[in-house]
């Protein structure tokens, strides 16, 4: 069984030779290749080599385009910076508020160099792994774009106090989101992985989620011609799954660190895959045997549930994480399937 077959079997609630698993090793690829991060996050070939090295070393069942949302901010004009051991961060916002952002031109997904970089990583990985490993394009939902362009404060301010402006901005951003998502799929991505933190009531009020951000998300996802993984984005998700379940085209829900996989299934009901619940950044401080224990705890929580993918969540695995701690996940998964790592 190859990785694509394994993931499809999980989706279809069919048995697999071993549980599928995913590690968010977008940054960690640079550790394996030794690439400078400025190259890793600007040259598609360099990034793709990192994902190939991740695949060779740890055998995860899904690979991703760069987990690099500041690239989307850059497409609107907000600069980012990569420090020697960190994934890039948006360091300045190009517009002051939602009204100013409404005046910005929408980036062209077919010509902006950073968006082309994201797309080219998908093309390279697809050429290498077609029919073998699912490749997911990473992006953010329309409501999560403004924090990259005007900052979270200005966006929350608009959602709270200028709902008509916020609605206009969501309407304006949705076509861009759709263009980028469809382009990634046409480049060969198996599906998309995205966050929607501004639809989560950990971040916004129920009134905002119900009237603005969740409807915008539903409308946008309905037009995505491919499967979608819904990522918790750093917010707790399990208690909100009743709100998010049934989102159009969403085939998997990615829960937060340590959230209960069994509870997630009960809240979701049958159908979508549940992904989680290991901490990506937290691996840095864990010995391999501690990682093993967390994997086994996750397997216990999922019980007989076949629609489960063990995954690191939250942010990237840190670049100075010992490889042995990541390999412990591979080994735990193989043991769960009765195979050698």
């Amino acid at each position, binding site marked *: 069984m190859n990785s694509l077959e394994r993931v499809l079997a999980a989706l279809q609630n069919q048995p697999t030779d071993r549980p599928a698993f995913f590690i968010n090793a977008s940054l960690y690829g640079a550790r394996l290749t030794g690439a400078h991060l400025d190259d890793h996050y600007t040259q598609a070939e360099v990034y793709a080599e990192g994902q190939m090295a991740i695949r060779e070393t740890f055998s995860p069942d899904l690979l991703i385009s760069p987990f690099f949302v500041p690239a989307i901010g850059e497409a609107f004009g907000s600069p980012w910076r990569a420090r020697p051991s960190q994934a890039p961060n948006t360091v300045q916002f190009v517009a002051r508020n939602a009204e100013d952002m409404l005046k910005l031109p929408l980036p062209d997904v077919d010509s902006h160099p950073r968006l082309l970089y994201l797309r080219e990583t998908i093309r390279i990985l697809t050429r290498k792994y077609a029919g073998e490993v699912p490749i997911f394009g990473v992006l953010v939902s329309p409501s999560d774009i403004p924090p990259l362009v005007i900052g979270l404060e200005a966006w929350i301010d608009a959602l709270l106090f200028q709902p008509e402006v916020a609605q206009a901005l969501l309407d304006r951003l949705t076509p861009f989101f759709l263009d980028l998502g469809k382009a990634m799929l046409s480049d060969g991505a198996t599906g998309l992985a995205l966050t929607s933190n501004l639809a989560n009531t950990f971040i916004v*009020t129920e009134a905002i989620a119900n009237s603005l951000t969740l409807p915008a998300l539903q409308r946008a996802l309905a037009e995505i011609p491919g499967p979608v993984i819904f990522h918790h984005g750093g917010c707790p998700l399990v208690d909100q799954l009743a709100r998010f379940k049934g989102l159009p085209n969403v085939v998997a829900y990615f829960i937060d660190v340590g959230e209960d996989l069994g509870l997630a299934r009960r809240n979701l009901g049958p159908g979508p895959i549940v992904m989680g619940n290991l901490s990506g950044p937290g691996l840095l401080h864990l010995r391999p045997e501690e990682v093993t224990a967390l994997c086994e705890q996750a397997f216990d929580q999922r019980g007989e549930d076949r629609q489960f993918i063990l995954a690191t969540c939250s942010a990237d695995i840190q670049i100075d994480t010992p490889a042995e701690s990541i390999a412990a996940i591979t080994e735990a998964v193989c043991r769960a399937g009765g195979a050698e790592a």
Partner: protein
Amino acid sequence: MERNHTQELLSAIQHADRAGANAVIEDWARGRSFSLAVTELLAPTLEAFGEIWSTGQGGVSLATGYVASKVAEDVLSRVLLESDTASGVAPSRGPVVVGNVEDDFHPLGRKMVAAFLRTSGWDVRDLGVDVSAAQFVDTAEACGARVIGASAMMYTTAKNVRKIREEIDRRGLRGKLQLALGGAVFKLRPELVADFGGDGTAASAVEADALFETLRQRSLGLAPACGRRTP
């Protein structure tokens, strides 16, 4: 029946109703003063709100906390207007320094903390985002602050807190200058506060006042006469 302004204000904040909250405060301050409203109405309400927020229950979102900080700023603006026409001024509890650590560009939490601290009478020196360790300690020394509040959202940037700890220690200010830490990463992993050399943290922005007071008292206990212009 007499109005329960504290309960009304708490309810308005919990519903993210900034205008409603300001109307409650306006009504309470009629015939009194806005500076009195800070201590007798807003402070106890924010304390109750902070308790609800820190439990993770009660449906308090980041946006609700943001509204609370805006209401605090609104009241402070009224206090400043009042102080131009009367004798009412916010009480000073001494200077404190806040900022986002080097490489951190997530200002919202820090701004909320600054608003709540100002409401509580602190003289807040807000250094903004991407603040170096030297900038934090230079400013604290210059203004005589007993507490630095450093904010970080992610683990990668939170590691730069260690540089502030080292800078404080290198200048012989350990104990005299206390280091408060805040931000999402410390809320999720409070053990990092000690790992990175912090002296304390709070579960929510509203509770920063109590934390800073605890740390200030600790500093005064350890070094009653330290620093230039230290109150």
